[in-house]
């Protein structure tokens, strides 16, 4: 155990708990629920396991899932902006 204490000391300042930062935290964590949208949309293949409608010859199954990449990016950027700490 003594060894571990020394390891901790190497990395942590030893000025006691009082000097430890009050975490800035993240605002609006409720917005994380928005991430449920891509989960539901991509993890239920029953929704999209079909050929039509096609897009430039690509069956729905393929372009639908690809389309969720940019949509998820938009959601993530939105959540990032709204939850960013001060």
């Amino acid at each position, binding site marked *: 155990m003594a060894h571990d204490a020394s390891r901790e000391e190497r*990395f942590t300042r030893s000025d006691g708990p009082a000097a*430890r930062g009050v975490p800035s935290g993240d605002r609006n964590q409720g917005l994380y629920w928005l991430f449920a949208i891509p989960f539901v949309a991509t993890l239920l293949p029953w929704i999209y396991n079909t050929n039509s409608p096609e897009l430039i*010859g690509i*069956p729905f199954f393929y372009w639908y899932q690809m389309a969720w*990449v940019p949509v998820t990016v938009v959601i993530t950027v939105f959540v990032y902006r709204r939850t960013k700490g001060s």
Partner: protein
Amino acid sequence: MGAHLFTLAAVKGVELAVFIALFGLVTVLGFVAARWRRPSSLEHLDEWGLGGRNFGSWISWFLIGGDLYTAYTFVAVPALLFGSGAVGFFAVPYTIIIFPMAFIVAPRLWSVAHRHGYVTPADFVRGRHGSSTLALMIAVTGIVATMPYIALQLVGIGAVMRTMGIPGEWPLIIAFVILAAYTYQSGLRAPALIAFVKDTLIYIVVLVAVIYIPIKLGGFGDIFGAADKKFAASPAPTDGTLLADPQVLGYSTLAFGSALALFLYPHSITGLLATRSRDTIRRNMAALPAYSFVLGLLALLGLMAIAAGVTPLTGANGKPDVNTVVPLLFDKMFPDWFAGVAFAAIGIGALVPAAIMSIAAANLFTRNIYEEYLKRDATPAQEARVSRLTSLVVKGGAVVVILVLDPQFSIDLQLIGGVIIVQTLPAVAIGLYTRALHAWGLIAGWAVGMTAGFYMLYDTPNAVTGRAHFGGAQYALSNFGIDTKTTVYTGIIALALNLIVAIVVSLFVRGRTLEDRTSPDDYDVEAGDPGVRDLPITPDEAAVPAGRR
């Protein structure tokens, strides 16, 4: 060489010349990287093993992207679509949902790791759950899951080499010796710098490929038509351009389970902990899906290969090696010089993750085995030295595995790797939120999850390849007496058993408290907050303000 001597006529000169030129470029970068971002000394694990823990958004984007999307991915995912069709596309939902999950969870790991100087996931488990046994189990799981992954990077390079007409294993050995040398020299800075070249090449090649090849093949309608025709003609019920009904649940559980596993791999965590701040991680989780889009496009190359009439080369074991279909497609479709660029993209794509994986495995050995059990008072310089040497051993081991054993063995191990690494989720990811699961419960759950996972993989035959065991990571629910053809990803079933056991055992041992060295506010601190040290520093220059760049 002797027996492997090949006829020069079979070698594709222009392709090889471009390949070697680009390979030479990244070799120089690999060695120069030791001086990149001027560390005062590499004799510290935070420097050699985590690149100074100070990578900003751009570098991290290239590094983590280069780390997660490996050469094997680029070769194997299209190969899966070539062979089986729609099921191979699971890589897209998998890499869509991974980033929102990491967006929420990964910053907590970053914070606690920075406050306590943790380098590996097992370091965190040691501090959080107060059990060195559990930490050892997490470390060993990580090393075992990573080793075959490194070996598979060689399979990726090998597929490219054979397509260029170069048989035998010696080019692989040369490539890995060079890789080992500059990783030893520069640590994580080498793959970070090389990742810029790798990813740039990959993006160029993929964008050209998905525009140019469909035009040459007569459009996507013709490509999917040819694929439909091939799958309709094959007797196997598990292929097709859409999922068969019994495959649907397997598809989504595979995507979900793979996503849970990805950021538990030691090399992913190495990439995360090398970032400068929580904010860097969160920004990256919004930007990394660009790679997912590229992966989706790449996957379609497997179907294009069908339309182009590609026949896989015969592998060393006398069976067709589907991993050669993407290189062969490039060879067939592109002018020689651009095929060379494409091959270099795949080849260099193997080096970046192989370097990071060997560093991650070496760090695990150093911190959680060497320092915990062999030399308790190791200095930072000794840690760095042991890690550097271990990285050489790890890469040597990967080469031996590929040379001595059937490559199929590595592919089996990689299959197992995904199933076993997800068994560390309760200790690592759930541990970031709560200590409701007791270390003893976690140990018991891990043991049950590992045993069950291994048994189920052993118990899975593959009708297409005619193998009786380790035929895939889809377990038939009919094994549980349910009258259905539906299959579920093995890792998810094993994880469910793991969690049940962990919860039940934890209820029984609730009273026995083990030490938790972390405090609740450790999980939310950002760089610059008190108690989070400025990085990078070496211990003897702690008085000097860190050079923020």
